[in-house]
């Protein structure tokens, strides 16, 4: 298992996909923090909720770690490298477990980088505009550790969904359509239901300021339950399908 994990991590370092996604996630986080921090007037920027929006820009990591997990698995099927992988380690659950662990680590890395970018950008914007930090003590945990946990779970979901769908283009289209359409539309139409979707549960976990979202603790539990469901389905498919 240690050997397989080491191999999976080396796979991620020897192509440009993960590095590219990390760069994109960091850039979007910076853009998000700037939009949230520069567009409101100074009178609004002093409010806690506007500042929470700005400092939570690192939540971008959740979607991007999901995409990284997705690519880690589907590129093996797209390029056929799953065959040499399974010839070396024919115990498929070991391979899947190593990929899940690698996806979780990528999720943590993405979140640490994105949260750092959001906080440095946010503090800089506040300092330049001469506005005091208005966050409350309880805000910090979801904005930092909540985002890290959400991104870790996002990495796991990405690997699991990749192992379920296998087809790279199909998997990316499915996740993107979900993230940008289903999640947002359902939440807007029926927040009481929509907040239990994996994406919105993650937003609640990461401390986004929206009264309709779940509280961070409940968000963590719901997102973890989704993750478990996807992983169980992925294990089943991984055990039973020819490559």
């Amino acid at each position: 298992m240690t050997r397989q994990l080491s191999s999976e991590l080396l796979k991620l370092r020897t192509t440009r996909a993960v590095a590219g996604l990390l760069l994109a996630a960091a850039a979007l986080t910076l853009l998000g923090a700037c939009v949230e921090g520069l567009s409101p007037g100074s009178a609004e920027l002093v409010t806690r909720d506007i500042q929470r929006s700005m400092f939570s820009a690192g939540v971008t990591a959740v979607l991007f770690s999901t995409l990284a997990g997705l690519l880690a698995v589907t590129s093996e099927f797209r390029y056929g490298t799953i065959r040499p992988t399974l010839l070396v380690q024919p115990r498929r659950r070991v391979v899947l477990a190593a990929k899940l662990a690698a996806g979780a680590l990528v999720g943590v890395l993405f979140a640490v980088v994105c949260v750092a970018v959001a906080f440095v950008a946010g503090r800089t914007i506040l300092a330049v505009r001469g506005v005091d930090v208005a966050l409350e003590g309880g805000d910090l945990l979801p904005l930092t550790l909540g985002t890290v946990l959400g991104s870790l779970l996002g990495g796991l979901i990405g690997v699991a969904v990749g192992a379920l769908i296998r087809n790279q283009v199909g998997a990316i289209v499915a996740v993107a359509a979900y993230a940008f359409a289903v999640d947002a539309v359902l939440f807007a139409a029926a927040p009481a239901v929509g907040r239990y979707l994996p994406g919105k549960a993650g937003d609640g976990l990461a401390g986004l300021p929206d009264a309709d979202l779940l509280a961070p603790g409940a968000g963590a539990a719901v997102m973890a339950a989704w993750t478990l469901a996807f992983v169980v389905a992925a294990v089943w498919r991984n055990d039973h399908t020819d490559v």
Partner: protein
Amino acid sequence: MAAVLSANGLTKRFGDFTAVRDLTFALEPGCVTGFLGPNGAGKTTTLRMLLGLAEPNAGDARVFGRRYADLERPVTRVGAVLEAADLHPGRTGRDHLRVLARAAGLPPERVREVLALVELTGAADRRAEGYSLGMRQRLALAAALLGDPELLVLDEPGNGLDPEGVRWLRAFLRDFAATGGTVLISSHHLAEVAQTVDRVVVIDHGRLVAESSLRELTESASLEDAFLELTAEPGA
């Protein structure tokens, strides 16, 4: 002692289509065996079942007396190449091998050794997207050799090789068998393996049509005639 590799009543169906039907054969150690049949005969499907990548609907596939997935450190017993194109185009040849060596718990020196063995050291740090088909074949062979296996299973390894590469591969496989290794090499192209193999297993439409020494098969006719006769459509 168990056969190096054996198929016993192996059957694989894809929906209504039976790709491999009750196929039984075994490999003799120290031999190069040609696994022959026209395109679509079920060769690759058979190899995938033997290597644990596909589950048979009936029968069993064994390597050194066990299911592939039950082998301890399989790469030290079996080296296999199913498709030479099984490479990530953005990864260098060397990194492709490092990834596999790491999963197998093999030392990094082994990567250098196999790169030298297949004469790919000069191109090892280029991304695989720029490799010719022949270079991909060599890299895939290098991956199969990482664990210094006793058995090589190669699916159509001659595809894309230039005449010099074909000659090199032939010499390499003869040498591998001469030092006690066993080789199973599939091909739909008879002339390519006629000078390499000792024995042949011929299948068509998923069924065994011949299992013999090369000499027996070619005694009365040329290998090509024999092959065409064995795989001809009934009544054609």
